């Protein structure tokens, strides 16, 4: 009471209560949220692209590009200072230059990747055009974007090149494939070995696109890949097979049937040696027999490559509604992650939030566990952990709000070390975890041992983006969760 009276007296003397106090306090909150940026509709946090941390910042800094899937919108969140995100939106002129003017299409960017840390950025826009040929399917575009920043850190969304349906809008020759060009994009060294290339997924195939010369290769197993998937395509590029170049893993989940993952390799198809070199289907697989041969329709919904230096990369395959598989490149028996019966013994359950009762993951089969997967080194030990989205998981009493489970891949492999969720969960339509990314901070400049950057988990939902600087829970861990990279938490 005395404290209150003294505080109120001081407030009165100082001119009242400062509403910014709450902002100041919440700037230090363990989770920073970017909510409902101007111009965005739904699916705000679906397309996330961590950029290279700016080196010109003295303190905690990172940049995250995110795009609106359902509306022409594009933005960069610039984390600087104390790690609070400052959002810079692309102007309508800049969006127009990318072919995202609102009078052309109400759709936005569905995928993004960068060719190099400094750019250009690959933006997949599969729905930006109405169907020009009456086929009922938008042709789609892929745009290349540069993001130069001035001395103040302000970036410019600078048009570099646009490829539409494999045809350059400035006169390059038409190529295959067609329809929803840009469903997924990735960077890889597929055809040239040491040259970064843009890998673009469309309805009926996968292409390799050069910024300057356009399409350089397309998938040749078109028949298999032309099967319309029920879910959005997933894409991962890594050295999955023996050979000098990287291979392309693309997922084809089919609802009600057996989802598959195709490994595309560039070269002459051994099965059709007369054809010119292209992206032939080197391998395809569903649920590995070693862990069960039941058909999983969601198998391949999400993919993430786990590179191992000189060795073959492992592949994480999301198979909703309730499974994720870790397929080892060295042929070991795949590891299966589920959100069911994988938390025993009870003593290792995370004690997360006594208020919400989120003491354990959902056990229901319809939590859409595996809709998204990502690799994030949240504990800073140099080895990435696996983040898995259960898009329809309940959060406390809020149904189908969504959760993200984090697993240590070098642990026993099946027990989550953390579960994150929205502290203000939205029932049914929150879609927490619809986007996952690892954001790298150059906190080493000020707050961490020099030369060691920090990585944090970024989770998107339908209306915004969460940046988890700290993880809740008193976890029984062999290694501690990474400390908050922001200075005030050190």
């Amino acid at each position, binding site marked *: 009471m005395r404290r209150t009276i003294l505080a*109120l007296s001081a*407030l009165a003397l100082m001119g*009242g*209560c400062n*509403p910014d106090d709450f902002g100041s306090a*919440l700037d230090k*909150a*363990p989770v920073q*949220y970017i909510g409902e940026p101007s111009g965005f509709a739904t699916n705000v946090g679906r397309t996330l692209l961590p950029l290279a941390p700016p080196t010109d910042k003295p303190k905690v800094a990172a940049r995250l590009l995110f795009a609106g899937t359902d509306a022409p919108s594009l933005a960069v969140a610039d984390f600087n200072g104390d790690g609070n995100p400052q959002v810079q939106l692309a102007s309508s002129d800049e969006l127009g230059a990318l072919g995202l003017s609102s009078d052309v299409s109400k759709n936005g960017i569905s995928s993004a990747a960068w060719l190099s840390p400094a750019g250009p950025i690959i933006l997949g826009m599969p729905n930006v055009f109405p169907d020009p040929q009456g086929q009922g399917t938008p042709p789609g575009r892929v745009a290349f974007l540069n993001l130069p920043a001035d001395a103040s850190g302000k970036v410019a969304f600078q048009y570099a090149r646009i490829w539409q349906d494999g045809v350059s809008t400035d006169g390059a020759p038409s190529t295959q494939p067609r329809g929803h060009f840009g469903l997924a994009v990735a960077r890889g060294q597929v055809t040239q070995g040491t040259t970064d290339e843009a890998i673009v997924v469309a309805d009926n195939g996968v292409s390799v696109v050069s910024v300057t010369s356009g399409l350089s290769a397309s998938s040749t197993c078109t028949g298999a890949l032309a099967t319309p998937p029920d879910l959005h395509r997933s894409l991962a590029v890594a050295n999955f097979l023996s050979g000098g170049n990287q291979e392309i893993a693309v997922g084809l989940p089919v609802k009600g049937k057996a989802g598959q993952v195709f490994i595309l390799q560039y070269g002459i198809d051994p099965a059709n040696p007369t054809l010119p070199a292209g992206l032939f289907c080197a391998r395809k697989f569903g649920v590995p027999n070693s862990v069960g041969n039941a058909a999983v329709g969601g198998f391949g919904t999400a993919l993430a490559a786990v590179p191992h230096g000189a060795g073959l990369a492992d592949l994480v395959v999301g198979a909703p509604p309730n499974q994720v598989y870790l397929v080892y490149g060295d042929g070991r028996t795949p590891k299966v992650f589920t959100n069911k019966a994988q938390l025993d013994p009870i003593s290792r359950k995370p004690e997360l939030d006594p208020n919400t009762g989120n003491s354990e993951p959902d056990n229901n089969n319809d939590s859409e566990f595996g809709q998204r997967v990502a690799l994030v080194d949240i504990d800073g030990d140099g080895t990435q952990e696996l983040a898995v989205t259960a898009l329809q998981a309940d959060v406390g009493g809020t149904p189908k709000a969504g959760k993200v489970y984090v697993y240590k891949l070098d642990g026993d492999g099946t027990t989550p070390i953390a579960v994150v969720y929205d502290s203000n969960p939205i029932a049914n339509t929150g879609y927490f975890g619809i986007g996952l990314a690892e954001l790298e901070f150059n906190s080493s400049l000020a707050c961490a041992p020099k030369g060691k950057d920090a990585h944090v988990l970024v989770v998107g939902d339908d209306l915004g983006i969460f940046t988890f600087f700290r993880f809740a829970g008193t976890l029984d861990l062999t290694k501690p969760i990474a400390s908050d990279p922001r200075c005030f938490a050190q």
Partner: protein
Amino acid sequence: MERLLKLASVSALCLVGVTVGSERVGLAQEQTAPDPALQAAKAQFEEAQVLYIKEQWDEAATSFLAAYDKKPFSSFLFNAAVALEKAKKLDRAVDMFQRYLDKDPQARDAADVKTRIESLKALLAPPPTTKSEKVSAPAAVLPSIATKGLVIIESKPTGATIYLDDKAKGTFATTPWQGSLEPKPVKLIFEAQGFKSEEREITPRTDKVVELYISLSEQHFLGWIEVIANVPGADVFIDRQEIGAIGKTPYTGHLKPGQHTLWVSRPGYQTAQKEIIVEPGTATTHTISLDTVAYAVLKAGGRDSKGARLMVDGTLACTMPCEHRLDPGDHQIVVQQEDMEAYSGKLTANRADETSLDLQFSPKPPRTKAWAWAVASAVSFSLAIWRAADGMSVNDQINNDIGNLTKFTNNSDSRRSTGRWDYIEADVLFGVGAIAGLMSLWNFLEAGPPSTAAVNTVNRTGPDPKKLSLVPFGVPDGAGLAATGRF
């Protein structure tokens, strides 16, 4: 001198009435109605005297006692005793003489009566039984005795001193008096303080009741005085100031003889007091010199001024309406009246100034608005504190949650908005409270139009400012009156 003669001519009338026997002798200015009992006693007395003369002693004694029953004069008992002695009824005579003494122990003849009682008792004693006793006890010889008359003396005023024949003999009695006097001419001298002495000669009789009533006249010669002052028009008071002035200087008039106190006063002057002695039938002139007062007088009044506080030079002078003396010089005048704006002004006072201050008060503005603002301020501050406390609670919760590793508090926490609004509401309410407080203070301090006063100063040493002089004047075509005055 004419006034003196006139005074003498109106001197009081002295009326004296003397009744001898059954008739009043002379006139009385204020006679009371005849006393029926006295009249009956007198008649019975005269009847007893007739019987006594006829030497019908027993009947005479009985008649004297009957007269006594009607009016218990002691003389009636004496006469009855004499009649009984004449009738040789000595034992009854002794008893009756004794009753006489009991009735009037201070009787002038009390000693003689006692001697006679002893003598009568000796006669009544049994004869001596031895020769020696017979020789040594000669027979008693009683002196002759006769009945008494009755003299009744009353006067106005009562208590007058009665002298017989000569005042040098000393006081005989005071009125009223009744008794017997020797049946020979006697001069009665009456004196009473403040009244003129009177003398009457009467001849008492043993067979009559003499009734004398005398009304003394007040001393009736007044003195004449003339009072003159150096200031005409000054009020003249005699003996009692509280009954008001009897006139103004120059004053002339009659006064009763004796010592009197004379006051002469006029505003602006110090009141003069003088003790004077008025001799009957004299004329005296008294000259009074009035000195100017060494102060000024402030008369404060006006509508709604009752109970107002008159402050002179910061000190409470009096409660209005009132007068206050001021020392000559400059003064700061302040008048405070409840619920009214104070009056403030300066006044320069000179000796003998009389300044009237007629206040016109201006009411203070009502404090209703001030109180309303004060209540609004208090309510606003209370609400502000309430909202601020809520906001602080939210802030504490946020900080606690941020520090709690088990919670994913994010920067878009809905409590940010809640807390901000709490603080904004608190700020607004603090602001409203402060404004309302200032308004309240302003309304409390707000003053209405200042109270005013009509100030009129007159120096009382000058001519009467309201006196109007009419001066006749003539012109070739007629005449008229010119009015001059000082206002």
